[in-house]
């Protein structure tokens, strides 16, 4: 009984790690822009496609494909950031909702037009399982958990010590004051956006070996899984996002294991509704930051 319990927790953590890397990018972008990036899942998809493309066409090894996927996505995000996201500064929320939903549609359908709508098969990665007693887990999933921790340590260091990180925090607190003291808000927004989408792409390629299939619409579900996490974590809160992602991952795992797979996705949506009703500012802060 204990082993089953532990295994379900492990399943939850491995799912939560994926959510966490995607969600932290989305929450950082919200922090500086006050805008929910509804196209976030599409960058996850772009990264995966980038990785899949170089592996299947020129046979690049997996680690190199990870880098290519992230870099390509960041380049696309730079262009979108430059022409769309920077204009969102100081815009009413409706503007960013429509703009990011539009970008999501464009990215998704461009990929479908270029590569076709069918599922692609992602064959690279480290899918051999390792067994701890009865509990088996793919090496890739252990890698994801380890890299998730690394990403969060890195982000923590970035926002605490680096100049850019401090600027990001400043912009997320008060845009006008930043402008007064000479922080280039536009640059901060652009770099946060490129970093956040790069993380989404990173998560996508990391998960591809265990998820096997790659297709144009794969990002949608990720965007919707990410929403309850960033609300639970407190919008713009990096540490909170990690905890919230793990909570959602583990809760989903228990629901799928005990009630049925068909109820799993309701966990996120029920959480979102409850959070918005009772603690719209997140689990970890007593009052709203924004």
């Amino acid at each position, binding site marked *: 009984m204990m082993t*089953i319990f532990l295994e379900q927790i492990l*399943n939850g953590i491995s799912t939560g790690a994926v959510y966490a890397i995607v969600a932290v990018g989305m929450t950082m972008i919200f922090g500086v822009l006050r805008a929910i990036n509804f196209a976030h899942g599409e960058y996850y998809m772009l990264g995966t496609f980038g990785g899949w493309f170089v592996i299947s066409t020129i046979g690049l090894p997996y680690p190199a494909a990870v880098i290519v996927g992230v870099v390509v996505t960041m380049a696309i995000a730079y262009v979108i950031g430059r022409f769309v996201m920077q204009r969102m500064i100081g815009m009413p929320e409706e503007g960013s909702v429509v703009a990011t939903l539009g970008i999501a549609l464009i990215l998704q359908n461009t990929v479908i037009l270029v590569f076709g*709508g069918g599922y692609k098969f992602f064959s690279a990665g480290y899918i051999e399982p390792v067994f701890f007693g009865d509990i088996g887990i793919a090496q890739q999933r252990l890698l994801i958990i380890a890299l998730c921790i690394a990403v969060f340590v890195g982000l923590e260091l970035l926002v605490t010590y680096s100049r850019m990180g401090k600027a990001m925090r400043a912009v997320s607190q008060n845009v006008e004051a930043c402008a007064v003291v000479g922080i280039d808000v536009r640059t901060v927004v652009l770099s946060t956006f490129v970093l956040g989408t790069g993380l989404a792409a990173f998560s996508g390629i990391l998960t591809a070996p265990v*998820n096997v*299939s790659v*297709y144009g619409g794969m990002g949608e579900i990720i965007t919707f899984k990410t929403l309850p996490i960033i609300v639970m974590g407190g919008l713009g809160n990096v540490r909170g996002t990690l905890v919230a992602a793990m909570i959602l991952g583990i809760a989903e795992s228990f629901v*799928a294991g005990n009630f*049925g*797979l068909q109820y799993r996705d309701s966990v996120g949506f029920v959480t979102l509704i409850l959070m918005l009703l009772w603690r719209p500012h997140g689990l970890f802060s007593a009052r709203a930051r924004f």
Partner: protein
Amino acid sequence: MTVKTERAILRAGTLALFSVLALPNLVKAQDIVVGLVSPNSGANARYGAFAQRGAAMAAEEINVGGGIDGRMIKIIPADSICTPVEGVSATQRLISQDEVDFIIGDICSSVTLAMQPLVEDAGKLLVNAASSNPEITYKAGVGGYQHSFRNYPTDEIRAKAVAEYAVEKGYSKFAVLSVDSDYGRGAITYTRKYLDELGAEFVSEDYYKEGEVDFRSVLTKIRNSEADSIMVYGLADTTPIIARQMIETGLAGKLPLLGNGEFSAEATIQAAPKAMEGAIEAAAWLPGYDSEGSMAFVADYKAKYDGEEPNNHAYGHWETMHMLAEAVDAADSTDAEAVIAALQGIQFASPMGTITFDDHHQAIRPLLMLEIREGEPVITGSVAGEVTYSEQ
């Protein structure tokens, strides 16, 4: 150039572009127009691509041979994305804008069920080539919809055949892991009808949504249950994901997969050979089927589409297009009523044997049983396809 003139040019350009796009499809009056509804985007797009290619190949063969009394077949594709809402509006467009003579579609049962009343009201003819939910023909022919036909085996037969076969092989405790749709749930509902009779049971029941990628939790549960096999009526693209995660959770080689979900596809077996070994599937057709017509189809298809191996939906739509053409030829008209009468009486010589329709407009055709042995699909038998309609 001032901003104003720039805008004016842009506006005029956009207008011109849209007016070109809005021009009706140029259809010659004597063409026979067939609307083909299938999921061309979304999670089931791969199925849709097979359907379109199979049907296009049949149409080309017919047209090269001089068409039907000199009239050419023209296919208008429509995208259902495998959702009833999209499928209905795609069908509506085919009927009212493209003014098609016949409609072939959809692959997804949920969409086909939604299309039936629409086609009935419009007085057109719907021939389905790929949906397996039993309701579709329970409600057709003497069951109600005169304008619906199905040239594909129903899950009532498949459910029974798979369960019987599994019990014969010594499996009786099934863990259900099917797709959450009319197809996945329908197959399980019809399996349940035969459980008592066969002395088998469902140990657990889980349904996954389209696009699901994380099966670890549910597979962990199944491993710790008493199940001796996993019953999957699922999507072809999801089978490799389940199979790979079975290896991960230590289920591969212990619990075989039973049901349907392209277990026999080369890519699926390659993705996780250990998990697919011993899998039992009932399929309408598969590329390895040993008949002259079927082998010729596979060879022609591969030659036409860059060596791609056809799946059963490519075959089904190819065969159905030929069958429809024969019915139109026999009716000597594109009038729906005349073609319906022709289909009711048709004795279509297909590569799978002669196909006829029962009074529910359900094709009487065989279903193949196959098993994966040493990484290769082996046909172990076939099941006759006549349905006994029970009271509902």
